[in-house]
């Protein structure tokens, strides 16, 4: 008898745990990730093979699909950090991310190359180029931020300006040349540092995540961004300046763009203004949506967005692995995206929880009637 009660109690606890998990914002991105992992395990377990092989420089490096995924998702994850804040505070999205990455990358190359598009030696230390790029990107972020915060322009419309003009500005910065850097040390940041078996972008992304975690922990940024996103006028009455918070969120996104742009140009040691980071803004916004964050602003979960970014890259790599027909690849992605986004929409999830409760209560009723 007692055994039975205990069993029932533990069942109840498990049920409560499950419900709490489903209600947790992390559930959808994690479930999506789990689904992709299971799919790959079932179809081809070699997907998860990781091997340690010597690279062209003779150092052992890790390789395999998983490494490729965490490597290539780095930029996306970094951008998702900034985009989550912008979404939360302004209730809109920045669609100029791809174009401003082109600008950031162009600035890095301009500083490193000077006016010579194929320099023998670097004209400035890499750290200087990086810092200049951060400043420039932050300024462009501030430009977007001012339009949104002070001129009250819809974020999507405000950022449309740089979305359209960004790639031309990037080309103009380098006089329409396509600089190529031959110094191998510049490639370290997008590939491998000799002797370290993991790709560098993974470390950079980890550093960014640690930094934002620290900022959210130590400062009131999370609270302020959320309250501004939920109700700007009441947060003003409570002594928070919504304009400043919006501006700050755009500047942070600008800095994220600088880091992502730096990695992008380092990967290839060159740039192509018209295609670098093409359509990345859509993937970033998708990562935020996949994380279950309301795109209309307000409450946000940074971890969920970042996991969302990795899910998207996981999906992309899976599609490449299974050699999905080129013409159909966007369609496949779209189908998966529709399912994920619909499931992760707060409204649908609320309905689902209600539906579950109904079923459970119905069952209980039936049981009672039987008794």
């Amino acid at each position, binding site marked *: 008898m007692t055994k039975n009660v205990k069993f029932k109690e533990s069942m109840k606890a498990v049920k409560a745990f499950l419900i709490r998990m489903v209600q947790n914002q992390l559930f959808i991105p994690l479930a999506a990730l789990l689904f992709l992992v299971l799919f790959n395990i079932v179809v081809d377990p*070699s997907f998860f093979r990781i091997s340690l*092989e*010597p*690279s*062209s420089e003779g150092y052992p*490096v890790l*390789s*395999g*699909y998983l490494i*490729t995924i965490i490597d*290539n998702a780095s930029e996306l994850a970094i951008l998702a950090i900034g985009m989550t804040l912008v979404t939360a505070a302004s209730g809109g999205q920045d669609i100029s991310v791809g174009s401003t990455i082109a600008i950031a990358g162009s600035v890095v190359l301009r500083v490193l190359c000077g006016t010579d598009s*194929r320099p023998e030696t670097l004209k400035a230390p890499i750290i200087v180029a990086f810092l200049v790029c951060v400043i420039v990107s932050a300024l462009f972020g501030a430009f977007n931020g001012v339009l949104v915060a002070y001129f009250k322009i819809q974020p999507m419309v405000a950022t449309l300006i740089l979305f359209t003009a960004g*790639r*031309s500005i990037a*080309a*103009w910065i380098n006089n*329409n040349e*396509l600089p*190529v850097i031959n110094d191998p040390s510049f490639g370290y940041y997008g*590939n*491998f540092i000799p002797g370290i078996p993991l790709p560098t972008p993974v470390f950079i992304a980890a550093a960014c995540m640690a930094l934002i975690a620290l900022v959210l922990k130590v400062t009131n940024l999370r609270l302020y961004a959320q309250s501004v996103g939920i109700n700007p006028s009441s947060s003003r009455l409570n002594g928070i300046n919504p304009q400043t918070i919006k501006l700050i969120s755009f500047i942070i996104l600008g800095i994220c763009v600088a880091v992502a742009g730096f990695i*992008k140009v380092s*990967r*290839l040691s*060159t740039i*192509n*203004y*018209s*295609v*670098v*980071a*093409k359509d990345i803004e859509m993937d970033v916004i998708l990562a935020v949506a996949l994380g279950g964050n309301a795109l209309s602003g307000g409450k946000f979960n940074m971890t969920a967005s970042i996991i969302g970014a990795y899910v998207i890259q996981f999906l*992309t*790599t899976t599609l*490449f*692995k299974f*050699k999905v027909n*080129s*013409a159909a*690849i966007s369609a496949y992605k779209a189908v998966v995206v529709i399912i994920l986004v619909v499931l992760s929409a707060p409204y649908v999830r609320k309905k689902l929880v209600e539906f579950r409760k109904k079923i459970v209560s119905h069952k209980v009723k039936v049981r009672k009637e039987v008794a």
Partner: protein
Amino acid sequence: MKKFVKILVSSVLVGAMALSMCACNAAGKKKSNGKIKVGIINNDPNESGYRTANDKDMKATFTEANGYEASFAYSLKNDEQIAAAQKFIQDEVDYLLISAAATTGWDGVLEQAKKAGIKVILFDRTIDASEDLYEASIVSDMAKEGDTAVSWLASQNLPEYKVIHIQGVMGSSAQIGRSDALNKKVAAESNWSIVQQQTAEWNAETAQQIVQAVIDSGEKFNVIYAENDDMAKGAVQALDKANISHGVGKDVIVMGFDCNKWALEELLAGNWNYDGQCNPFQASYINDIIKNGAKQKTVIMEEKGFDASTITKDDVDKYGI
């Protein structure tokens, strides 16, 4: 007071309009002192290295010193290009040179041009309009570019061809021409096979990921057929990461298109094997037609394919864009 301001503003506006009309007339009536007036409508020069080279070539050819008075209009949008064409017709240019953003919608404006006695020459891209609306069209034959590249590859006499095929934006003329040639060959020959065929949409990073995926799967391949230089570069980056040798006499043959200068330098260094030209230098052909008249409606430009074992420094300087 209000009324006064209204009158003032409206009179200023009327004045400005009248002035601008005068300016129009003046510009239109002014005889172009023996110079040939050309209106050039092109795509945005930032679009690609190809377009940059094309625009530079145009600007270098249609100069005052060569007897031209050239005006330029750039847009990636068809309707803006058509508006620019209408403006050029009003300006009474002698020739209208067009690289159309899209193939449709040009009939009306070309008829206007014909009525005004303006000759139209199309370059780089054709349009869907009756042939008698334009003098000539100067284009690249993308299918021929693909054929040249594939027959070069066949001449390498490999015992087996396992190709990673990285495509451009699906449906673009360059992609169709360059893909078809390879697809036909693979279908015809028993020792040719495609390991991976995927679009990277002209994007180097995507190409890198595609090749990375093949390397991770452990499948063997010995040819990378990338439909432009950027994607070939991305592919090579993935090979380098995985320590797979490429280039002349190495494990993997690397092929690109467009003849960017940096790509030809890779050929010269022996890191790549082949680069197919997509000739952006139409200006000399147009110049010839204006000076000597058109001999045929469609002029197909001469295009080369460069082999890393025979390319010279002069080729790099001359054909690199």
